[in-house]
């Protein structure tokens, strides 16, 4: 099995350049409209793209969607509603010329692997969300693709179902020797199943690195929020800190610490034992305070507050727009 070298552009949507090793799982995260789906659909051949995406010596972009050996799992699953679960999974092998009997045998095998072989004769409408998503992933893998693309496969599922499927998916992806791109909205997906994380922001790659690097040294506010951190830019460095490290006061902080902001409370919500406060400042920040403090300071939406954080409680790293993924020593 081969890796994947991507250098592609979907005009007006996304520009991305990265390389993956065989068997590697890349989580793609970023806010809505960042270009995640465009990137994945371009690799699948459903959206025209410029550049190249080389897998196993062939440039995928020079092939039509059906020639590419790429498996795509859609967010809405898109199981064929008139076919049984088994016929859905057998569809790919059949379309590639495998005989009906062999295709069904292979389909049955894939349903087995995902623990849904007893549902083989059911139509998609008779499946639960989690079952349907298992069948959809089995359908994509049954064509033995070089590249597996998962477009938010766990979105819209019940929390418990999503957790079970997440663990299961991690196991399947570990034994899959092709390259996987997993679009997700959840930091936990990136942290549990991915080898590396690619952060898209505004159509470009903002950061690429291991889950640890990305979660400890986030470069975008979106990722910082996903992993529950604040990130602010300070000259040519980025500063990240936990919400617990943020102090809230009604008056301007004394001793004039360098890291302080003034803003307006936007939202207040319980977070574990604490109260999480979202403050509209420049940039937006989150702070965790005790319920007693929240009451004492009367932290209701609209309240003007001062935020500050001690220099000892922050992590500083270089901001480098030119080379996403490089981490300052």
């Amino acid at each position, binding site marked *: 099995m081969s890796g994947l070298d991507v250098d592609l552009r979907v005009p007006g949507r996304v520009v991305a350049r990265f390389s993956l090793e065989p068997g590697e799982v890349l989580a793609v995260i970023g806010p809505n409209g960042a270009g995640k789906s465009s990137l994945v659909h371009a690799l699948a*051949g459903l959206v025209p793209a410029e550049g190249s995406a080389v897998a196993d010596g062939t440039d995928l972009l020079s092939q039509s969607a*059906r020639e590419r050996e790429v498996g795509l799992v859609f967010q809405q699953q898109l199981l064929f509603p008139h076919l049984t679960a088994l016929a859905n999974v057998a569809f790919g092998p059949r379309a590639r010329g495998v005989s009906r009997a062999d295709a069904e045998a292979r389909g049955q095998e894939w349903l087995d692997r995902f623990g849904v072989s007893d549902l083989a004769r059911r139509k998609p409408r008779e499946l639960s969300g989690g079952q349907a998503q298992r069948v959809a992933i089995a359908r994509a893998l049954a064509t033995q693709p070089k590249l597996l693309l998962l477009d938010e496969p766990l979105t819209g599922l019940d929390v418990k179902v999503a957790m079970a499927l997440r663990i299961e998916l991690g196991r399947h992806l570990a034994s899959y020797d092709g390259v996987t791109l997993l679009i997700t909205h959840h930091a936990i997906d990136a942290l549990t199943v991915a080898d590396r994380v690619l952060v898209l922001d505004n159509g470009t790659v903002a950061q690429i690195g291991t889950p640890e690097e990305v979660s400890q040294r986030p470069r975008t506010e979106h990722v910082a929020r996903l992993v529950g951190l604040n990130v602010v830019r300070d000259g040519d460095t980025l500063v990240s800190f936990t919400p617990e490290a943020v102090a809230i006061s009604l008056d301007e902080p004394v001793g004039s610490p360098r890291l302080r902001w003034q803003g307006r409370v936007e939202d207040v919500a319980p977070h574990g034992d604490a109260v999480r406060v979202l403050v509209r400042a420049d940039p937006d920040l989150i702070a965790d305070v005790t319920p007693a403090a929240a009451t004492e300071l009367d932290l209701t939406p609209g309240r003007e507050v001062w935020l500050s954080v001690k220099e000892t409680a922050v992590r500083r790293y270089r901001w480098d727009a030119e080379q996403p993924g490089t981490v300052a020593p």
Partner: protein
Amino acid sequence: MRDPLGRPPALLLVPAAIATGLLVVPLVAMVAATDWAGLPDELRSEPLREALWLSLTTATAAALICLVLGLPLAWVLARVDFRFRGALRALVSVPLVLPPVVAGVALRTTFGRRGLLGEPILDLTGFSFPFTTWGVVLSHVFVSLPFVVIAVEGAFRAAGREYDAAAATLGASRWTAFRRVTVPLAFPGIMAGLVLGWARALGEFGATITFNGNYPGTTQVMPNLIYVTRQSDQDAALALSLVMLLVSVGVLLALRDRWLGTP
């Protein structure tokens, strides 16, 4: 059962009742006026049996041709992006609103013995459409095809292009996707379009008689027979009309549960 939003307003209920009456009363009146005692004799008459058989076979043949030609056209309109698609759809829909007699004249101009296509066809094969059973089928196809195309295009659109995308990523060619995904998904809509086209062909009168005349056994379909009979024998025309009504309603009922779905 009380509607929590209040009683439906009389301004809507009264016209609705009138509309219902307008559609139902003439049919009931026709059934009521039928001379039931004389009906068996009428049904045994040779002209009726000939005309009914001709109507059923030509309408069925026309529906099948509409399927073979209309399905691909509907697919092109639903799935292929090209510059003049809107214009093509408008052109294809023209026969929907065209007076059938005008359709007959247009067909005559095209497929008549001296017609644009009729003359070369005659020279090449010695065959000419007008005044033949094939001419009847041709005029049926001309008036029914737009119904089939528009109905099936709607069904194809509802079947969702995204399923084509899913099929493509699984390695299916567009033909395979059409055959194994699009058509099965659109099947109820395709059948509905077909029934619509068939019913339209069965009732076709103006284009058929203009293009083919009215020859018993070859071009005299039921509507033509009813029209001719009515000029001399009202009761017989009534009986013939009743047969057409029964055939139409029978087909609608037979297909309703199977394909058209319940409202």
